[in-house]
């Protein structure tokens, strides 16, 4: 009984009746192997190029950011109080007034900032 079962199992496992649907040719193997080799190389090239581009973009981003930081903001006055005379201050206020009037981009100091500046750094007499 057990032997018969074993025989049946062995026959099934050996799969002698199983036929290859599409026999594989050596040419197919060689062609595929060569193609895969190429595509593998192409994949490496793609990733290394992408990484290089990403690194360049990152570098440019940081460079631009540091450049931006060095420029004064439109609404901030970076004028030391020691160099401003009363006359200069009036002149500056005039410039500011006209800049605001014509909405020019060269506004250096708005009213609030100027007041704060004057309060913190009283003009020398």
């Amino acid at each position, binding site marked *: 009984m*057990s032997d018969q*079962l*074993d025989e*049946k*199992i*062995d026959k*099934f*496992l*050996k*799969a002698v009746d*199983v036929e*290859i*649907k*599409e*026999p*594989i*040719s*050596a040419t*197919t*193997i*060689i062609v*595929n*192997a060569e193609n*895969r*080799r190429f595509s593998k190389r192409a994949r490496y090239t793609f990733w290394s190029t992408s990484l290089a581009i990403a690194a360049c973009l990152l570098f440019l981003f940081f460079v631009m950011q540091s450049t931006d930081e060095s420029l004064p903001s439109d609404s901030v006055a970076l004028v030391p109080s020691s160099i401003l005379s009363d006359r200069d201050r009036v002149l500056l206020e005039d410039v500011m007034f006209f800049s605001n009037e014509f909405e020019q981009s060269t506004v250096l100091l708005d009213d609030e900032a100027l007041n704060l500046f004057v309060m913190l750094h009283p003009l020398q007499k």
Partner: protein
Amino acid sequence: MQYTSAKTLFFPVSSQVTQNKQPSTDEVEPSEESRWLSSVADGEKQTMGLLVGKWQEPLYRFFYRSLGNHADAQDLTQKTFIRIYKAASRYRPSAKFSSWLFTIARNLLIDEIKRKQKAQTIEFQEELTSMTSLSLDGKSVVDEWKEIFQHVLQGTPEKQRTALLLRVQQEWSYLEIANLMEVSEQVVKTWIHRARQKLKDRLKILEKKGEL
């Protein structure tokens, strides 16, 4: 000096931990496959045809019984030969060619099983449920029990299944299987016994039902 896995087939491992006292693989005579591979490595690509001709059926049957469908068997057989072709120049006849071939085949099989594991488990459970309550009307009984067997076989752990297939289908010794799978001969025997027992249990159920 011992060689026990696909990676180590190329490079000697002096401190490999195995439970077997294996014969030295350095003593292996260069087989005709080794000579064919040397030719392929030397640029005689047509020699690959001899290798494919000799080994495609055993490989195909191994994959077919492991995965249960022709498309996967075809695909993995082809992939195995592609790997063999690419590795031809690195091959050293320090172990039996069939050990090397089936180590590569098994690695591919494991990758494939992992890739499909999730979907396969769900499908398998559903199909197995439907298979057990199967009506044989209009179907060949032989085809039917083969289908059921295939499902039972696929339900066994990969190690048990591979050990059983290498033993019965490829007629390997327990020691050869143990070397390939990096376990002791005793473990291999246990795996084979368990896998066979599962198939027997299923067969007995079918016989009791009068379906065989």
